[in-house]
Each structure stands twice: as structure tokens, then as C-alpha cells.
């Protein structure tokens, strides 16, 4: 009902030219992206085959593919990916839920927010991976400690960004609800939360990356399975093929998880 003045049936020659130029430009970007990847892989393979670089320490695309294949054949591939994925999703979900919950509590009480402010600032600047050994002592050498790491890495950022999103909600919208006689709970439900969904989603996007950091560091420290374990193990026994293969799987998994959040965003903020 809005774009009635934009008629499509009688596109002028100039408009067609404009559309074509746009399309050509998009295509050039995609082509360059693909070319970059393909030539990087080709050059790597060539350099290793011709011994410009030492494939033992630099690895080689064909050897990475072989490693992936044998991991798959041995049935180990999905175990490792599954373990890491489970830890990341668990840490990510818990971190986001807990962070949002604490942000709601801080919004509820200005007093609480002021009391906790200096602690949050300190915790935010602390590199959370430093707490890794403590988590291992407390929760044992295993998945629980790793999930706790992923949670720790993301929870403080979530609290801070969601709380600041809550505080930025238009005061006049809150005033409007108050004139209807809204309770604090109704203000939270009807305006603060829905208005903050874009903020919460962008917190999710940051948390995806942070949870991976937490999980991989956690696996470096304790685990017996997972991609972080493969990377550390491969490094220790000088199997760089294994390290590279794990890094590539990690890239793909992290990208897929990010896309899942983007899909979630499209689903929830259709009004924008």
C-alpha cells in the first residue's frame, strides 16, 4: 500500500540499465569472493606440492581433506563436533538467559543496579578465561567446567548490553503506559521487553562468538573430546593436518550458528 508510486510494469530504459548495473556489481562481488577462496586453496596446495613450504608444519588442502575423510570414516568426526556444539549451545543459551534475567532484576530496582555497577565494570574488564582453572577445580575435569566457561564469557556482556537496551527505551512510552495505570510488571511485559528485542538479538550475535571462545579455551584446558581437544592434541603431536581440519570445521559450525541467530532475528523483528 506504500509503494504504489513505484510502478514496475513500465520500467524505463534508464531504470533497466540501473537494475542491470546493480546486478552486475553484485555478481562481481560474489565472483571475487569465490575466486579469492579458490586461489588461496590452489596456491596453498601448489606451494606444498612444490615444497615452497613444508607441508609437515604448514599442512596442505589435500591432506586436510584426507584427515576429514578418515575422521569421518572412523566415526570420530561427529562425536567431536557434537560434543563441542552441545557445550557451545548450552553455554550460549544459559549465558543469554541468565544475563537477560539479571538485566531484568537490575532494571526492576535502581538500587540494585547502582550497588552492582562497580562489580559489573570490574568483571567486564576481567578476561574470563583466567577463571578457567577455578572452574575446573570446582566443577571437575569435564563438560560442566567447559559449559561454565562459555557461560562466564558471555553472561557479563549480556547483562551490560541488555540492561543498557532496557534503559534506552523511550521514557514517553513508559509514561503512556503509566497513565493507563500499568504496574511495573506490565511495563516490563508490554514495552521494555518487546522494545528491547533488537538489543537482545544483537547481544545474541555477540554471544555466539564469545561462547565459542569459552568452549574452545575450556577444551584446551580439560577435555578428552571436542574440536578444541583435537586442535590441542594435533598441536602436541605435530599433526598440523588435524589442527587445520578442526579449525575449518569450527569455522563452518560458528558461521552456521550465527546464521541461525540471523534467522531468529528475521522471525522476531518483522515490524522493522
Amino acid at each position, binding site marked *: *500500500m*506504500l509503494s504504489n508510486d513505484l510502478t514496475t510494469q513500465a520500467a524505463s530504459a534508464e531504470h533497466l540499465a540501473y537494475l542491470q548495473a546493480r546486478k552486475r556489481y553484485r555478481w562481481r562481488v560474489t565472483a571475487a569472493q569465490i575466486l579469492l577462496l579458490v586461489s588461496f586453496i590452489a596456491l596453498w596446495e601448489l606451494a606444498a606440492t612444490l615444497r615452497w613450504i613444508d607441508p609437515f608444519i604448514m599442512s596442505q588442502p589435500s591432506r586436510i581433506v584426507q584427515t576429514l575423510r578418515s575422521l569421518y570414516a572412523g566415526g570420530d568426526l561427529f562425536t567431536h563436533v557434537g560434543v563441542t556444539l552441545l557445550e557451545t549451545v548450552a553455554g550460549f543459551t544459559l549465558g543469554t538467559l541468565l544475563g537477560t534475567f539479571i538485566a531484568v532484576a537490575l532494571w526492576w530496582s535502581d538500587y540494585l543496579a547502582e550497588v552492582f555497577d562497580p562489580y559489573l565494570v570490574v568483571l567486564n574488564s576481567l578476561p574470563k578465561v583466567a577463571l578457567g582453572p577455578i572452574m575446573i577445580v570446582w566443577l571437575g575435569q569435564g563438560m560442566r567446567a567447559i559449559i561454565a566457561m562459555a557461560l562466564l564469557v558471555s553472561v557479563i556482556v549480556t547483562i551490560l548490553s541488555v540492561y543498557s537496551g532496557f534503559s534506552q527505551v*523511550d521514557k*514517553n*512510552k513508559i*509514561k*503512556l*503506559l*503509566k*497513565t*493507563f*495505570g*500499568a504496574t511495573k510488571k*506490565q511495563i516490563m511485559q*508490554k*514495552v521494555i521487553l*518487546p*522494545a528491547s*528485542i533488537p538489543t537482545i538479538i544483537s547481544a545474541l550475535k555477540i554471544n555466539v562468538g564469545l561462547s565459542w571462545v569459552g568452549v574452545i579455551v575450556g577444551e584446551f584446558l580439560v577435555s578428552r573430546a571436542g574440536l578444541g581437544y583435537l586442535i590441542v592434541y594435533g598441536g602436541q603431536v605435530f599433526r598440523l593436518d588435524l589442527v587445520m581440519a578442526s579449525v575449518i570445521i569450527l569455522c563452518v559450525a560458528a558461521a552456521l550458528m550465527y546464521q541461525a541467530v540471523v534467522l531468529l532475528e528475521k522471525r522476531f*523483528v518483522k*515490524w*522493522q
Partner: protein
Amino acid sequence: MGAEKLLRIEKVSMKYYSPEGEISALQDISLDIAEGEFVSIVGPSGCGKTTLLNILAGLITPSAGAVYIQEQLVSGATPLVGYMPQDDQLFEWRTIWHNVLLGLEVQNNVNQATKAAAEKMLRTYGLIEFKDAYPSQLSGGMRQRAALIRTLAINPEILLLDEAFSALDYQTRLVVADEVKEIISSENKTAVLVTHDIAEAISMSERVVVLSKRPGTIKNIHDIVLTCEINSPLGRREAIEFRAYFNRIWKELDVHVEQ
């Protein structure tokens, strides 16, 4: 104007406290508003207009004095009062229909009768086709109408308009003022408009209350009597008396521009 007193403001004063000291925002405001009346409050910026409106809406309690609506003391938000904010404040994530129902939802009063009344208003005021549209799909004027219907849906006795048109561009503003006035008259509502626009105040209301600089006191109350053919805000701007009222109120506002 012999109609029943709907709103009674009795010796209302308001003081704010800050570490630097005490600020007196309003002093001894007394005013009666009759049922069906349209009253505007004008004053220089910072004179406590918005404070007064917040008191009428029951959002803040005056330091002294009291406000009565239908002889009931106002102590907190009440369904008797409908508030029209500056900028329509429609919620972007709700459709027009769900925006209109917002007040009823908050007051737990969504039922067949109230929904039917809201739907009827959407139909009467030309928004029924946009029921399922999001606010971003509507023009400024339509958004303002939707905001007014949201306020009217809770069926208040008094409408408080807080600089309700100031976010609109000039042309839209004139048209929307006309529309809003017409809707308020046809729904038989009493209205209090707070504005800094003298012409808007004269063109819309039966009485204009002029507030003084801080602490705000009532400086004068003008009964607006205009001879005009069309009794709409736009038509009223054509009246010969318009300019005289404008000049008198302008002088009373005592605005000095720093050189």
C-alpha cells in the same frame, strides 16, 4: 458553560527537590473545567505546564492542593483520564489494532463490548483498512488518529493532550488539529491541551489559560469567542477577533529573546 464541573483543580502547588535546593514549579493553581469543554494551557517554556498535566493524569502527587474529577480525588492513574502523548508513541512492534487495545489490555478490560467500540471508532475515523498494518506503514496524520483512538478506547471522561501535535510538520499539524477536534467533539469528550503554540490554543479551545514564568501561576484566563462561519480550528483561524486574542496572549507570555 453552566454545565457540570467535571474537573476541579484546587490550590495545587508543586515543589521539586534537588541537591542544589528546592524548585517551585507551580503555585496555587485553581481551575474548574466543565463537562464538554476544551481548555488550553499555554505558558513560557519551563512554566510547569507538563508538571500540571502529570498531576492531572495522576502520575505525580502535588506538594499541596488537590485535583478532583467528578468529585473524586485523583490519587494515581485513573481510567477517567486519557492521555495523548507528544509524538504518537504507537508501539512499532504492534499492529494498529493491538496498539488501539493497549490501554484496555493494561486495565484488564478487553471484552466484546470494548473491542466492538474500538473497532467502530477505527471504522468511523477511516483506519479500519489499516487494522493489521504496522505503525511504520501509516502517515503522520493517520498515526495521530490511531493514537487518539487508543486513548479513546478506554472511554475516559477527560482527554489530556500533551503538546500532542508538536512532532508533526506544519501542514499536517493544521489538518490533524482539525481532525482531532472533530473527533473529540463528536465523542463528547472534555479536553485539556497543553501547548506552546498560541494560535493552536486559540483555534481549538473555548478557554485559554495563560501561565506565568516559574513558579507557574495562572496569569489570566481568556474566554475565546470568535465569529466565524465554520467552527473548526482551521475556520476559527479566519475570525477577525483571532489576531486580537493572539496579541493579548503573546504580550502576557512576556517572551524576551536574548539579544
